[in-house]
């Protein structure tokens, strides 16, 4: 089990009686790119929301690097090394591209966020907060040194999208094009230096050229050894970039395996590609 970075066992979530995620289990090994595919409403995004703590699970366990995270809140999960993007590209609209990335670095900082272990502890949480305030107003030698590292990471992440984001570096995010928002979001997530990068339809609403760009960036990340959990509709992209593919339908996993295996699985062809099952359905 310890070979896995992420272990999900028997995960469940329902909305008003509708079982959106119905007892699924899967795992992701370090350096692996795992994709979840399936028709709309099959529970893909809900699964991502459960893994990142955006919504609480109703059953099952999630373990990251040996630590249970299924009852942790979102911020704590992010601190544990899970970064994510959202389906419709949630950037901090009033902050510039560079500042968005700066916020993404938040949980990796030490000198400008001292006493981090106390955060979240009743009353004592004020100690790191006030220390941060002190550093913001006065500063310490260590925080000034770290400031240089922050700037380096911001530049590195902008460099990843050099042609697209460099010219917009200091523009507020609300003024960006849709595709640039998605790029800013990925850059912000990578600034967290995540153990696990969770991407929710990174190419939604993008045209062919932009999609091809995302694909080559995903392949680059994969080459860097970044572990990725991906939800994506564009099958050709999924089959190209993934080490393993998980197919969901009606809140359950109906198949998983290598791209070649999944492509040939008749259950997948039926559920995902939409071959109509016996007209008239089953008699009741």
């Amino acid at each position: 089990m310890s070979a896995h970075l992420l272990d999900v066992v028997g995960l469940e979530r329902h909305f008003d009686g509708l079982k959106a995620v119905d007892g699924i289990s899967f795992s992701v090994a370090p350096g692996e790119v795992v994709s979840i595919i399936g028709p709309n409403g099959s529970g893909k995004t809900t699964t991502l929301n459960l893994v990142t703590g955006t919504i609480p699970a109703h059953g099952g366990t999630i373990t990251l690097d040996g630590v249970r995270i299924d009852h942790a809140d979102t911020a704590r999960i992010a601190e544990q090394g899970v970064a994510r993007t959202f389906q419709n590209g949630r950037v901090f609209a009033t902050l510039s591209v560079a500042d968005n990335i700066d916020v993404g670095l938040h949980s990796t900082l030490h000198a400008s966020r001292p006493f981090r272990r106390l955060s979240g502890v009743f009353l004592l949480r004020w100690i790191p907060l006030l220390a941060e305030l002190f550093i913001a107003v006065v500063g310490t030698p260590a925080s000034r040194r770290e400031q240089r590292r922050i700037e380096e990471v911001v530049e590195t992440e902008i460099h990843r999208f050099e042609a697209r984001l460099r010219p917009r570096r200091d523009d507020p995010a609300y003024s960006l094009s849709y595709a640039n928002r998605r790029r800013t979001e990925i850059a912000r997530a990578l600034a967290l230096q995540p153990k696990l990068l969770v991407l929710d339809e990174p190419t939604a609403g993008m045209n062919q050229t932009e999609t091809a760009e995302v694909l080559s960036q995903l392949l680059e990340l994969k080459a860097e050894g970044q572990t990725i959990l991906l939800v994506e509709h564009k099958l050709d992209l999924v089959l190209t970039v993934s080490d393993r593919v998980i197919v969901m339908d009606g809140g359950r996993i109906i198949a998983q395996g290598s791209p070649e295996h999944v492509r040939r699985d008749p259950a997948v062809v039926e559920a995902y590609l939409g071959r109509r099952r016996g007209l008239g359905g089953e008699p009741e």
Partner: protein
Amino acid sequence: MFDTLIAGLLRGNVYALGAVGISLVFGVMNVVNFAQFSFFGLGAMLAWFFVAQIGLPFWLALILVVVICSALGLVINIAVVRPLASFLPLAAMLSTYAVSQILDNVSQIAFTAQFRVFPKVLPTSDFQVGNMRFGTSDLVMLGFTAATMVVMALFLKYGKIGRAIRATAQDQEAALQMGIPVALVQHVAFVIASALGGVAGVFIALYVGIANPTSGMNVGMTSFVAATLGGLGSLVGAVIGGFVLGILEAFGIHFFGDSAREIVVFVVLIAVLILRPGGLLGRVPLISTEPLTGTFLGKGRPLRIPAWVWLIAAVIGGVVVPLFGGDYLLMTGTQVLIYAIIAAGFTVTAGQAGVLALGQAGPIALGAYASALLTLHLPFSFWTAVPTAGLVAAVIASVLAAPIWGVKGHYISIATLGVGTVIVAIIRLVEPQGIYGIPGPQWGGVSLSTPVGFYLIDFVVLLITLGLMWRIRNSHLGRVISSVGSDEVAALASGVRVRDYKALAFAISAFFAGIGGALLAHQYTYIDPTIFTMLMSLLVVTIVIMGGVSLPHGAVVGALVLIGAMELLRFTPELRIIVYGLVLIGVVRFRPGGVLVRNS
């Protein structure tokens, strides 16, 4: 004991009427409608005018109140609420807050601020059961409420428009797709709510025997809390909430006196928001689809202000005014400076963290009282007392506000209003008389308690405040706080503990509010609880919104216009508040980023 229960029922009766209206509007528009609060006061005053002044029969007065309030409600909905409600619920709420202040003060100009004795139109103690006394008046009120509720229930269940109201409340988008004219439905709901508000106002005047133009805010706030307790959007919940709160309040007053009233109400509010945010009967949506806080104010780029403008402003403010300004100009200038300090410190909460706190009068009062008591009773000088007062304000306000940071959407604004009101209510309970003879600043045995002395001290404090606020804004911490106001969900996903940073921003703002309050206290030499009103809170909010909600220097511009210009034009207090209200509505509607921000 039974008397207290009866008193509770009668108060609860009024709150139930009000709460039904508030809940109805919230259901179909997703807006907390402060404007409706004013109808309680207005209804009372109109009824007093018709009955006591003109001599109309009570039933005719009641009908006239219903007609006038309905018409006024419709106008407000068309002019202010609907244009904003569809996309900016928080902006709409803020605008209705402004409308309520305008209504209260127009009413005050029309009827004067006096407390009027409301005529006893019906006998109040002509029945006795056991040793309980009650009157026809009480029975009529309870009967009217019961009848109204039954009619409302039937209308909503079987009427075509009634059904459309329910459909709209449950799913506005789907209702629209069924061909239901949602705008019309919202007008109807608004009119009903306004009429109920007016009637509730008449009843409260009938019950307490006194009418006053500004009494609406209290009754309105309590009705709102009742609606929240029952579950906003649930009409049955509103009725239950109204009676429960009325009874709790009556017992609170019975045991702890009149000043316990507000504390009871707001403790209930905060408890409900934390323990059961959907109320007793309401349902909480699973995931909020839109960030409700703050963001609408943030878009647009701040205008770049060239260095020479800063320089000229500093020279005028720091040299020209103190050298050549007379005492009157200096005293007005000191007021501007103090409000600029408070508002500049508030930008981190309202603008960056996106929490539009509506109760800043609370921490201002804490600072004022702390500094006054420290200099009078302990060996503190002005110079040590003022910063200590800032710390005291920050600590106490933070402790009282600690439970509210998990509260969602624009409830958090209302929760901060509650915190502010509770602070002032506690001060009134502990120190009701006011404090005299607060010493001024001295330096080397020389008193600086002169207009120019206060002006220069406050000028320096403002410069320090602006410097600190800019440093925070341009730090990693500042960006993190801004991310909270921009998109909470994304901030959490980036590892930002949203609640902590809201609390920190509020503490910073409370610190500067406390400093401002302390400076006020030493300048006035006298303070009492009536200085620290909801209006003071509204003024602070209006100043930051006018200047650009996240810009510290915008606060200076806002204070110059709203304090300085008003004073120099010698506007009466009522007229000023009307101007504040209009400015707030205008800025929110047409220049949501503030006057120093270019819209985009």
